[in-house]
């Protein structure tokens, strides 16, 4: 059986998105800035895509800016706000310990350039405390940026409440919603969001395309200078096929949101319950305030990379936050941020599902994971030691 369960890394493009894109390569190949009819066709395609996305997020068309993806949107929102607010003497930014590197590294860059950064604790369940946020906001706070849903452990933040606090205190609020858009209901007005980052490839759209929602009235300075595209705010000839594909994918995701959520929660909960039967296993992060398709667990005494490579051999594609998969010496900062010790964080497994996954696949995973864990534990000196310490050997 083949089970692609790494949809948080990226998704397969949907037929709907691909079919919407094809004409943009063949017939609608013009430059949207050209005044002739070929260009105008492309212009209309981009305009319609923008309207579609704005409609789904409940904002105005001219509050959507196309970018090259989630990373660019995060960079733009954060660096732009920093520059804007520094002029008013505000050089303090609040975020969380477990943001994506697109946010954390941007903050680190700003810190080197004279900004002060406060990273909120996310506690054992991977969710911030609103009181911590209230206490952290200062006179000179320029921005609060908190991710909508975490890419590794899938926990979902109380975004509306965070936004409400920011509104009340007069602080701008950005959210990295790359993992949430297309998977959770989002209404930027109701949710009190000033800026939001999204990325096409996380919801069956194409890669290398994203958008930033930026509420009208916030005059973000440009990140990419050049031509007059995106109402003079983001230069570069539009990636018309990708823009159209992203809009089509989002429309499909939004239309099927409640149905997909129901299905995914069923798969997710079945896999979690099934894998929790493995001794010395645990779920990372809150079990309910969690993305519908996210399973994140740790298995003591095994190392994540070995686990995921053995899973690949039986047709299951997953990911891990172990040091050896992160390419660094430490396990992922996300797992450490929820208080896991290094040796447990090394044994992490993330399965992220999409609506194409099935309950049969869930059962297949539940059947395949335990023997692999057993095999790895049987050859693990760490497991041997743990068993001895616990008097099981």
């Amino acid at each position: 059986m083949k089970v692609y369960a790494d949809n948080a890394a990226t998704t397969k493009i949907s037929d709907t998105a691909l079919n919407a894109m094809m004409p943009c390569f063949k017939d609608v190949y013009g430059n949207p800035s050209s005044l002739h009819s070929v260009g105008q066709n492309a212009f209309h395609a981009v305009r319609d895509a923008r309207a579609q996305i704005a409609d789904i997020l409940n904002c105005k068309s001219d509050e959507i800016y196309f970018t090259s993806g989630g990373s660019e949107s995060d960079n733009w929102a954060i660096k732009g706000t920093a520059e804007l607010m520094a002029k008013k003497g505000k050089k303090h930014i609040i975020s969380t310990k477990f943001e994506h590197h697109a946010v954390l590294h941007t903050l680190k860059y700003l810190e080197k350039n004279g900004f002060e950064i406060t990273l909120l604790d996310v506690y054992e369940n991977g969710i911030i405390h609103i009181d911590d946020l209230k206490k952290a906001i200062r006179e000179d706070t320029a921005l609060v940026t908190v991710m909508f849903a975490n890419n590794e452990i899938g926990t979902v933040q109380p975004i509306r409440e965070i936004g409400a606090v920011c509104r009340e205190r007069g602080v701008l609020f950005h959210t990295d919603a790359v993992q949430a858009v297309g998977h959770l209901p989002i209404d930027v007005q109701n949710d009190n969001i000033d800026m939001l980052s999204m990325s096409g490839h996380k919801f069956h759209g194409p890669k290398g395309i994203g958008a930033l929602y930026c509420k009208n009235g916030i005059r973000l300075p440009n990140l990419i200078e050049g031509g007059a595209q995106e109402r003079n705010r983001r230069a570069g000839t539009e990636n018309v096929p990708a823009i159209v594909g992203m809009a089509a994918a989002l429309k499909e995701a939004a239309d099927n949101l409640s149905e997909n959520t129901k299905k995914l929660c069923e798969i997710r909960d079945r896999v979690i319950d099934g894998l929790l039967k493995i001794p010395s296993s645990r779920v990372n992060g809150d079990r309910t305030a969690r993305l519908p398709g996210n399973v994140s667990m740790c298995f003591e005494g095994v190392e994540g990379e070995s686990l995921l490579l053995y899973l690949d051999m039986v047709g299951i594609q997953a990911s891990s936050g172990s040091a050896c998969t992160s390419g660094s010496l430490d396990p992922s900062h996300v797992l450490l941020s929820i208080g896991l010790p290094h040796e447990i964080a090394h044994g992490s497994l993330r399965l992220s599902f999409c609506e194409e996954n099935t309950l049969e696949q869930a059962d297949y995973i539940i059947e395949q994971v335990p023997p692999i864990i057993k095999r790895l534990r049987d050859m693990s000196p760490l497991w041997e030691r743990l068993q001895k310490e616990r008097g099981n050997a």
Partner: protein
Amino acid sequence: MEYSEKVMEHFVHPHNVGKIEDADGIGEVGNAKCGDIMKMYLKIDDGIITDVKFNTYGCASAIATSSMATDLIKGKPLSEALKLTNKAVVEALDGLPAVKIHCSVLAEQAIKAAVRDYYDKNGIEYDEAQFHFNETHEHGVEE
């Protein structure tokens, strides 16, 4: 990042996995915090490694290097086993991705630790310098 076929072969079907209950020398190196621990068991007869087994907690390159290293020292005299370097193990595996080199250093250390354990248990004198390595699996020791 990509592993060579050799690495995958040794990772999927590692050689010499297990323990030797009446081992003459046992060496354990690495630590859980870093994500890899290697434990090497040696059976030694008349200065020759007659059997070797390992247990490893770690990534694919840690497991593959354990497997390859045990292959390379099995049946060899101790003097030769002590000369085995990480570099030789990595070469025998047709290389490792650069970010993975640090996962391979344990094999050489585990062998040395096991031989030293054998010397200690049998009151055999040895030159300390021969066993010069950082006990606490220093990730910085890259070749």
